[in-house]
């Protein structure tokens, strides 16, 4: 194991907070003592990555972002596979940015695992300890113990091609953990699995990550993975952090269209005055929260009801005329894309959709349930 002891901690002092301007929120985790404190700046062609990351030991941070947002670049920079052009990288008080990947106390689970095809599962797991100087017999014994812990004792002698996707994923995790890293990196750990396996593997991975005492950073474009696996979500778009918070907070209060789409909310930005928010375009939305100043409004598609004719009575004032842009079936619900003064997404039952005779181009009246529309500061 590589020494990560106190000696290097002295270097922690000088530049704490260099990346503050890009961090979405204040680091609620004091990273001065242990854990990860990084500001990753890397340039590749016209793309620029500038992401500040902090995590306490035991914390699981998810980097959530669309493809091409730079999250994998950030991961490679953390692993040392990509040089930083700026910023800093400290782990447990030790500067890592000048260290080559092989001498960083970092373990990586790659997206397609990259298990060495010519080695058996146990030799794959023993590879790390062997490279770090453990004797062969002991390394293999340790590897067997890791595989045992992953529930793979019976598959130790198999080559990767003989393993299922879920098993390969666990071998990859065991291989990364066998070097006892202080920072575990997971690149889209569930992306290569089919839907059914994913459920099972996600639960197992959650279990293993919960027991991991050092920092884990996981990269994903799948919000559910981030919500289930991570203690904190960092949303990255176009190389920058656009939102940061607990999974529940990010899911409830998205701050960009991308996040809103991911978590399935209607999101608008505007100016709040009391229980209403005037969206930049002009329309006014009634909300449950009392707020003044720049604000976001978010509400689930289920809070939008549709009517074939202009409703009369209490809801009449808030009814908006919309055109149906598209329909999509989601289980027993139909998701309706609406255009108009206020673009909306509405969920309604299949029966309701049939009764309204919805089809692209049809005109409907939409009412947003003010009690379910939440306003929060922009």
């Amino acid at each position, binding site marked *: 194991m*590589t020494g990560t002891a106190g000696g290097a901690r002295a270097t922690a002092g000088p530049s704490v907070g260099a990346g503050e301007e890009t961090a979405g929120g204040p680091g609620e985790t004091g990273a001065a003592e242990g854990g990860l404190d990084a500001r990753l700046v890397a340039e590749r062609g016209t793309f620029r990555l500038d992401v500040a990351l902090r995590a306490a030991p035991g914390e699981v941070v998810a980097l959530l972002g669309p493809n091409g947002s730079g999250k994998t670049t950030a991961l490679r920079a953390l*692993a*040392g*596979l990509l040089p930083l052009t700026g910023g800093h990288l400290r782990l447990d008080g030790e500067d890592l940015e000048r260290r*080559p*990947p*092989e*001498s*960083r106390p*970092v*373990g*990586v689970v*790659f997206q397609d695992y*990259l298990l*060495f*095809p*010519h080695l058996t599962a146990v030799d794959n797991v023993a*590879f*790390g300890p062997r*490279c*770090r100087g453990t004797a062969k017999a002991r390394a293999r014994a340790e590897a067997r113990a890791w595989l045992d812990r992953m529930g793979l004792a019976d598959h130790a002698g198999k080559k990767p091609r003989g393993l299922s996707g879920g098993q390969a994923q666990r071998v990859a995790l065991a*291989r*990364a953990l066998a*070097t006892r890293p202080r920072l575990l990196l997971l690149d889209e750990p569930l992306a290569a699995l089919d839907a059914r396996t994913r459920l099972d593997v996600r639960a197992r991975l959650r279990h293993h990550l919960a027991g991991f005492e050092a920092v884990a950073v996981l990269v994903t474009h799948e919000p559910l993975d981030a919500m289930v696996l991570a203690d904190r979500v960092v949303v990255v778009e176009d190389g920058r952090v656009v939102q940061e918070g607990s999974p529940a907070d990010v899911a409830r209060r998205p701050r960009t269209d991308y996040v809103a789409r991911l978590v399935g909310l209607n999101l608008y930005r505007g100016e709040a005055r009391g229980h209403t928010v005037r969206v930049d375009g002009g329309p006014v939305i009634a909300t449950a929260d009392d707020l003044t100043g720049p604000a976001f409004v978010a509400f689930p598609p289920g809070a939008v009801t549709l009517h074939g004719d202009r409703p009369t009575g209490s809801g009449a004032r808030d009814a908006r005329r919309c055109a149906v842009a598209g329909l999509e079936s989601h289980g027993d619900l139909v998701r309706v894309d609406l255009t108009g003064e206020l673009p909306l997404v509405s969920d309604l039952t299949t029966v309701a959709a049939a009764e309204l005779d919805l089809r692209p181009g049809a005109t409907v009246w939409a009412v947003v349930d003010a009690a379910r529309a939440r306003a929060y500061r922009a």
Partner: protein
Amino acid sequence: MTPAGARATGAAAGSGTAGPSAAPSRAGGPPAAGPRTGGPRAGRPGRRRVRGGVPPLLLLPALAGLAFLVLPLVALLLRAPWRGMPDLLAGAAVWQALQLSLLCATAATGVSLVIGVPLAWLLARVEFPGRRLLRALVTLPLVLPPVVGGVALLMALGRNGVVGQWLDAWFGITLPFTTAGVVVAETFVAMPFLVISVEGTLRAADPRYEEAAQTLGASRFTAFRRVTLPLIAPGVAAGAVLAWARALGEFGATITFAGNFPGTTQTMPLAVYLALQNDPEAAITLSLVLLAVSVAVLAGLRDRWMRST
């Protein structure tokens, strides 16, 4: 069923050259394929029997090419002095030349592996300025006339050569006209085959395995030795066999740089050439031995490596 279908399409094709769409729609099914592949000539009944539809303008040159390549080998077998062969083969000269050939080709392959595989890795994996130029230089011996290679080697490693004079003065090493010189000449000619083959395999191999190894604590060298090398082993083996075969047949560079001394530098190809002047039967026999070795190598390549690469 089938004859009826065929007749129907025949009628369609025969009567209706005007309407190409008529035949498929009327006949349908597999029998229609005949006239359709026949294309514009579908009207002629004889054409329909050639299922693949090989145009004679391609078939005839192809057969000529095949005959051109195979005929000399057949002639070699026909004219071989099968009766006297055991005696010829038992002769000390043949064994000497064969042994020397095998030894030198194997040594040249070994040298090529030791310096050629790292060179291939460098060309495939490391970005540096002038890499393309370097790759062109490496492949130059592939197209260079071997005699030119031999002359160039003399200029470099000859007794008065650029490097050779120092080798001679400081270490007392003389390469030209020695068995070691044969190995040098063969390596010069054969190594590019290995480098090209290994570099191609390296490019096809996923470099991220090396990265994965690095994140597990392996230095780049360890990653290469323990991960990359096993992954590209088939390519290395194929390259080594190619290089070995090339070295075994090497003539021009060898005779120029190492000369033609029986026992020390006279390899099989040189022996064949020399024998042809005084003893054609011996030349044929020696050629057959080389042919047998080549066929064996090719068979080995096919079965083991060519399929996977």
